[in-house]
């Protein structure tokens, strides 16, 4: 099971890297979203997988009686999901605003902050 998920994580990473190498913002953002999910899956897998035994202590007992699933990766993933979701929302708005302001989705053509034919510094003194 772990091997299968590890391979799936690899596929996610491959897809996201491919998308992020694009020149177009929207593809990069889809790549970022896929990368976020790949990382969540990676944390989940590296916490080891135990099926069908939730980490709940039965009534009247002080410790779990059998080996249960690891609850910590789920807490980590929950944090990571919230963060990556909010960042993706911000980035989508920012990308849309960029498209409105600069009129392009192509990063190569976004040269407002770094103009193409910038003057050289003065050589006097």
């Amino acid at each position, binding site marked *: 099971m772990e091997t299968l998920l590890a391979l799936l994580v690899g596929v996610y990473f491959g897809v996201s890297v491919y998308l*992020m190498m694009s020149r177009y913002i929207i593809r990069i953002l889809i790549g970022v979203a896929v990368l976020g999910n790949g990382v969540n899956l990676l944390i989940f897998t590296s916490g080891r997988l135990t099926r069908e035994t939730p980490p709940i202590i039965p009534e009247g007992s002080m410790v779990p009686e059998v080996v249960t699933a690891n609850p910590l990766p789920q807490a980590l993933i929950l944090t990571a999901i919230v963060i990556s979701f909010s960042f993706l929302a911000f980035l989508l708005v920012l990308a849309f605003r960029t498209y409105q302001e600069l009129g392009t989705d192509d990063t190569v053509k976004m040269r407002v902050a770094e103009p193409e034919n910038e003057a050289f510094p003065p050589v006097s003194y």
Partner: protein
Amino acid sequence: MAGSPSHSVDLSQAMIMAPSSPSDWLIISPIIITILAGAIMVMLRSKPNIHAYLATIAMAMVVTCELLLLQNVLEQGPQSMTMGRWMPPFGISFTVDAMGALLAAVSGIVALAVCIYSSLDINYTGRRLGFYPFLMLLMTGVSGSFLTGDIFNLYVWFEVMLISSFGLIILGGERAQIDGALKYAILNLMATTLFLVATGLLYGVTGTLNMADIALKTTLLPPGAPMGTIGALYFLAFAMKAAAFPVNFWLPASYHTPRIVVSAVFAGLLTKVGVYALIRTLVMILPESREQLSEIMAIVAALTMLVGTLGALAQNDVRRILGYLVIAGIGSMLAGVAIGTGTAIMGSILYAVHSILVMTALYLSLGVLIRMSGGKYSLAELGGGYKASSLLSILFLVLVFAVSGLPPFSGFWPKFVLVEAALSEGHHWLTFAILISGLLTSIAMGRVWAHAFWRGGPIGTEDGRDAAPLNNLVGTVRARAFIPISVLTVFVVIMGVMPTPFFGMAQAGSYSLLRPQAYTQAVFGEVIKQKQEQHKIMNKEAESKNEVDKKEEGSHQ
């Protein structure tokens, strides 16, 4: 229910029973104060004019707390506090050693200076859009990163820092800003995601997230553990955050676009947090990976220094020149990490302190010059700064000397230590790179001073005779501009003239990084003490039981 009185639960097995002492609260006070101040300002968003005062008061409190904390750490060694009474490594620990406390204190001082200066640069709209709450939350993220002792928590503080820096960089919403912000946002988000990947893998290998616990467990790992991969991922992630050479292009694309105070905070703090995290992970918790990566890091460091300084030489926009100098400074700090001896790490810490102070002061003083010249920032168009304000040009010249690494200012000592460490370890070409980057920096910055301050006017005027004079600042505006810059410059001079206390602090920092026993002791000391006391009680009970048994046996006989 497990908590019902029918079960007599011995909580001391799992929880810290002693209440936290006031000095423990000092560890998280910078985070509490800044996050509360940010929340209060958001509630008072209809009165943005009082934000500046609130922010200044909050930062003054933070600086006081951080200085007290630094004093505590220097006197008693690393300090630790674990949240929610859970025992470490299960609870989230905040652990601070000399490096964290020193960098937190310096960044607090810089943020206070920026708070005082910012009322000049941030107009009503900027305040209305939330400059001060964002600044406070940025400082929450920065202080949290310096003070936390848990690697996942470090990731969370990175994200806090990142999201508030998005708010600051986009503030105002001009076209160039949006262009710069998009590149900044996407590349930094990728870097923090890589950091999370590395953390996930590290958790899979060691089964813990507490940095002290990881440092203990990495020494006991089986030989097949993929520590080299994890170390390389951390290196890539933090090099990207710190803007080291092959992954530095987001910095010169974005740092010149926001308001100048925002650039000043970013240049002073954000990249240094990346370097701090790199030192914390690679030097303290994964020392073997650092050794494996040492050669690559040395190459990256040398190239970063050269790219930074050559980039600075090729720019016409003064703000972009400073952006490239930030990158060059990162190269010097990485050189220390690449060498990795105690002296070298000490040099990196000293350089980080120097760089935080000098880069912020440089951006702020250029902000004054740009304001005086009516919003010009191309080197060809600037001029006449000395005629308008001799004080500003003197302060700027001090900072130019400091950033180039010339004595008797702050930049000299870190470079001196790094060169010495590099020579004693036989890294000759790295030494050469450090020295040549100092030379190129002094040329680039000397040219800025000569053009913007020393000559009479912009290109085309006959040494200032027909140049329109710059508008000098007057009254309170002048005070609010010059007090922060002067204070930061005084720190720069003090660090150059009396380096001994800074050497002591940096040395304590590098010592505790290379020998993390004191750090782990600070985290687990409380637990061990509590366990020992339990053992004592149990032993006593057992002894008294034995005695009773013996008596009973005696009575039977």
